[in-house]
């Protein structure tokens, strides 16, 4: 995803002279093309994320469209108050890019695993939270994000993510992207778990379960119209995200459904359940341990369907 982001932001900068890119001393060689084509609009802000975010605010207050880029942990946790006050309080059009979110950097340890960032970002006033499921979604979302009039958190994986969409889907910020219909269960994925959700839906279908599937790259604002329609006809929703089960998409969906009158579907929140994932291992290994594989997701859903309804 980071290569796709670099390509796309370089192209977009050619079309919009207001676009400036600030990097937190990361992306060695990644932005060479951007720097070559737009040398005066690239800023290596150093290892100083608070200042980078504040500077982006000052630039936006001067009419520019800044994009800040560094690892998701550093671009959210380290500078949260700058995001809240400098960007959100002023409602400025700044895109905060968190690269390598979730378990992308599993092997680097807990310092580099962003597992609570969606939770932190989605509660901020005016903030739009975007988690593309593949590079196609990334490209479509980034183009639209640059036209929003407020701050955006763009949560990316790292590299070699499978492409899910064979062609450009009709993706709009704020809208879920339904991919399959199914009356037994609906899988709702945000971000880099989309390929896992697709494979899990395949497994469920093979097991005779009518499994619906939707990509929800926008966590905030949540597509409540879509969720309400699904909730009216499907008894089980399974949210899937490379993020803590506390505070992310699963929580957002549960919050919405909790406030609806009448019978409501059960929500199975799949994600990281056990804090820091700091055992040595690759992203694939960390995902396996966390139960974020097609097999484990399908099994959890089958088990949930088999369990008696709560009294």
């Amino acid at each position, binding site marked *: 995803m980071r290569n796709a982001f670099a390509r796309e932001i370089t192209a977009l900068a050619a079309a919009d002279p207001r676009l*400036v890119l600030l990097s937190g001393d990361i992306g060695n060689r990644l932005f060479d093309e951007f720097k070559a084509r737009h040398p*005066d*609009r690239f*800023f290596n*802000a*150093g290892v*100083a994320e*608070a*200042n*980078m*975010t*504040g*500077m*982006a*605010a*000052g*630039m*936006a*207050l*001067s*009419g*520019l469209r*800044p994009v800040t880029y560094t690892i998701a942990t550093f671009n959210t946790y380290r500078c949260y*108050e*700058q995001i809240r*006050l*400098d960007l959100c*309080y*002023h*409602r400025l059009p700044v895109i905060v890019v968190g690269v390598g979110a979730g378990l992308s950097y599993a092997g680097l340890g807990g310092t580099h695993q962003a597992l609570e960032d969606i939770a932190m970002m989605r509660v901020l006033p005016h903030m739009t939270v975007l988690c593309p499921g593949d590079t196609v979604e990334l490209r479509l979302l980034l183009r639209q994000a640059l036209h929003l009039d407020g701050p955006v958190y763009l949560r990316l994986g790292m590299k070699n993510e499978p492409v899910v969409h064979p062609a450009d889907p009709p993706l709009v910020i704020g809208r879920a992207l339904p991919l399959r219909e199914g009356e037994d269960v609906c899988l709702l994925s945000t971000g880099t778990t989309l390929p896992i959700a697709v494979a899990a839906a395949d497994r469920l279908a093979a097991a005779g379960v009518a499994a619906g599937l939707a990509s929800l790259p926008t966590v905030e604002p949540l597509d409540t119209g879509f969720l309400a329609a699904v909730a009216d006809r499907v008894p089980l929703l399974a949210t899937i995200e490379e993020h803590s089960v506390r505070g992310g998409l699963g929580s957002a969906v549960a919050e919405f459904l909790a406030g609806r009158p009448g019978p409501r579907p059960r929500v199975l929140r799949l994600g990281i359940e056990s804090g820091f994932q700091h055992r040595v291992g690759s992203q694939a290994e960390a995902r396996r341990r966390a139960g974020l594989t097609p097999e484990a997701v399908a099994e959890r859903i089958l088990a949930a369907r088999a369990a008696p309804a709560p009294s």
Partner: protein
Amino acid sequence: MGGGPAGSARAVADALRGRVIGMSHAAKAPHLGSCLSCLDLLTVLYASFLQVDPRRPDDPDRDRFILSKGHAAPALYAVLAHRGFFPAGLLDGYTRPDSPLEEHPGPRCVPGVEVATGSLGHGLPIGVGMALAANLAGRRHRTVVLLSDGECNEGSVWEAAMYAAARRLDRLIAIIDVNKWQATGRSAEVMALEPLPQKWEAFGWTAMRIDGHDHAAIAAALARADAAAGTGRPFAIVADTVKGKGVSFMEDDNNWHYRIPTAEEVARARQELGLP
């Protein structure tokens, strides 16, 4: 205000002191000592330095001023009203329900307020971003950020200082209101703050230390800062001030970080300031 003789600027500053003291009393709002320490700096900035026009508060070529020590908002409000950015009557509503004037300035709350502040350590990074944007657009206006000495506890101040020097932002001016107190202690004791000018120099800035209540010295320092354009170094003015300046029973008494003056104290203060 305009560029009148020094005596009239002094009279303006004292009148604004009376204004701010009255606002603190009426609103029962704190931070009076912090307002009084930077009032001379604000008076001179808006009287004779900042190229701003109340009729065109969004002029892209205007100088930018950020009150990074947002808790001195009443001082800024009073100066802006005096300069004609909004009717002085608005000051009477300070902190009252539905007034645009909160205890810390909100985003675009009134014309003339560039940035919402109140949490320390935010103004200088934003100012650096404004100065970078000015360079990118080929504009030559100045960006001035007023900080408190206690605010220099915040690491983001020094992140911004290093970055400004690296980018050779020589139309960026930081003024540090060194009133020697932070909320609950002597600033030089809470952290090893001094020597401040040397710190800014070491971070790649040109720095000078002045008496932050001497209007001629403030104007001269700003002129020197202006002349630094072209040197490739941002400019820091370390302004020695007195917390509560202008009122004998408030001066250098940190109780006035939070205390609210009584009606009797307001009257005594006005008498000392020579105000009716």
